[in-house]
């Protein structure tokens, strides 16, 4: 093996990697998953509604997002968002959007398509008797959904929702292509600056592994504990 390892580089850049890189990744994951679930639930409700137009728009959006690679979607939003912002704010000037906001919008919009499918399965898994009972008690659509159906749907799909969030966390590493500094981006910067590719990439892989593995073990335990026996 002609390569001399130098694991000191990890020690020297520890703070930068975690304070700057990992916080970016974790914050992005947290915010994008919440946003994605909210928007995804909205999409699922649209898809299941009896108004044809809403259903078609939702289906088209989900199909589009699911047929594109995430890298392409990241590029799209990176270049597109400032123009849209400028158009929305009506003054014709593209507004400035930082890397984080652009990434946040990208991941929320992209993952919402997947959360939509999960929520749709969840909503459909709640027996129709529940909805009927809700209407029978005099609740309207919004109340039935928010108080009866959605809580049960979320509980049924919680393990899958969490697994999707873990996948989201792994996907945040893709902001590398727009030169953002998430955890992987930080590791790459240190690797390039000090010429220590092997150590940094292996370390990054290890950290991701530990985080994702622990999280999925937790989800597995959660799954066995909350599964409802029918």
């Amino acid at each position, binding site marked *: 093996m002609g390569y001399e390892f130098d694991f000191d580089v990890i020690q020297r850049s520890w703070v930068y990697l975690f304070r700057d890189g990992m916080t970016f990744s974790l914050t992005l994951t947290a915010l994008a998953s919440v946003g994605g679930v909210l928007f995804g639930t909205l999409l699922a409700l649209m898809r299941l509604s009896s108004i044809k137009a809403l259903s*078609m728009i939702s289906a088209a959006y989900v199909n589009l997002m699911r047929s594109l690679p995430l890298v392409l979607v990241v590029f799209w939003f990176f270049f597109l968002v*400032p*123009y849209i912002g400028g*158009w929305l704010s009506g003054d014709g000037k593209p507004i400035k959007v930082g890397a984080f906001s652009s990434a946040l919008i990208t991941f929320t919009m992209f993952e919402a398509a997947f959360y939509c499918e999960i929520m749709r399965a969840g909503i459909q898994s709640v027996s129709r008797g529940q909805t009927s009972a809700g209407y029978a008690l005099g609740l309207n659509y919004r109340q039935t959904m928010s108080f009866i159906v959605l809580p049960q749907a979320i509980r049924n799909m919680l393990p899958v929702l969490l697994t999707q969030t873990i996948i989201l966390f792994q996907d945040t590493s893709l902001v590398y292509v727009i030169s953002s500094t998430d955890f992987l981006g930080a590791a790459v910067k240190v690797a390039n600056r000090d*010429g220590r590719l092997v150590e940094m990439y292996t370390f990054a892989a290890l950290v991701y592994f530990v985080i994702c593995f622990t999280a999925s073990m937790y989800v597995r335990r959660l799954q066995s504990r909350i599964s409802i026996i029918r």
Partner: protein
Amino acid sequence: MKSIKFAAIAGAAVLSIAGVSHADTLAKIGESGVITIGHRDASIPLSYYDDQQKPIGYSVEICQRVAEAIKTELKRPDIKIAYQLVTSANRIPLLANGTIDIECGSTTNNAERQKQVSYLPTTFVTANRLMYKKGSGISVIADMKGKTLVSTSGTTNIKQVTQMNADKNLGINITTANGHSESFLMVETGRAAAFAMDDILLAGLIATSKNPSQFEISKEALSVEPYGIMVRKDDPKFEALAGGVVKDLMKSGEINNIYSKWFLNPIPPKNITMNVPMSPNLKKVITNPTNSPDPAAYQ
């Protein structure tokens, strides 16, 4: 399917109608209270990070002078300066879409780019050369036949070598990397035989590498590259103001001090001296400031 088509057409229509408004950077800065300077991470010594991840360099310093002038002009000493990292690939799109107001890096001024952006008077003149490991038997581009040549994506260099390779049938395998440090690393680890880039950037990367004596820069120059600071097109007020600052630096001779600070004295982060005396081309530009994209104007 129908809904997608409708949305796409509507979106395109809106975007194109939304007005071919002229950019007004000064107004934008006045409103937002922030000037955003676009900088690079590894274009030593023009625009790069020191080891506290702060952007510094020859171009960055010139831009900081421009920023001060803007503050004075708008009579707003409270305006903040924000820094945004850009890469060769996204510097022009980010300038066009408003994310940055001025790009202070190592950007070549050429006619093609002048269709999209405007340049302030040229502040540095460099040449496109090859970098390779000593003893690799390479000295001119023709030696690269059958070997791998790397350059950074989004640069004039990659476009140039691709065209040269096709026009002269040189038989080189060309590959791209995301940034200058990645390209350098490819030569260092042996994945590529040479790196085509502006000679000043090559010198900077070699000087700050672990083993500088390993590398050599070719004598053969593939082209002349004038560097200029980029600003948005169709914004005469801002361009005049910023251009005026640069011209004043040149007339007063202050530019020579800035030049020696970055090219003739030790610089952070490793206190290495670049030792690159001002080339006759640059001296000529300083006496007669120009933002011409024509390489012949700089010979």
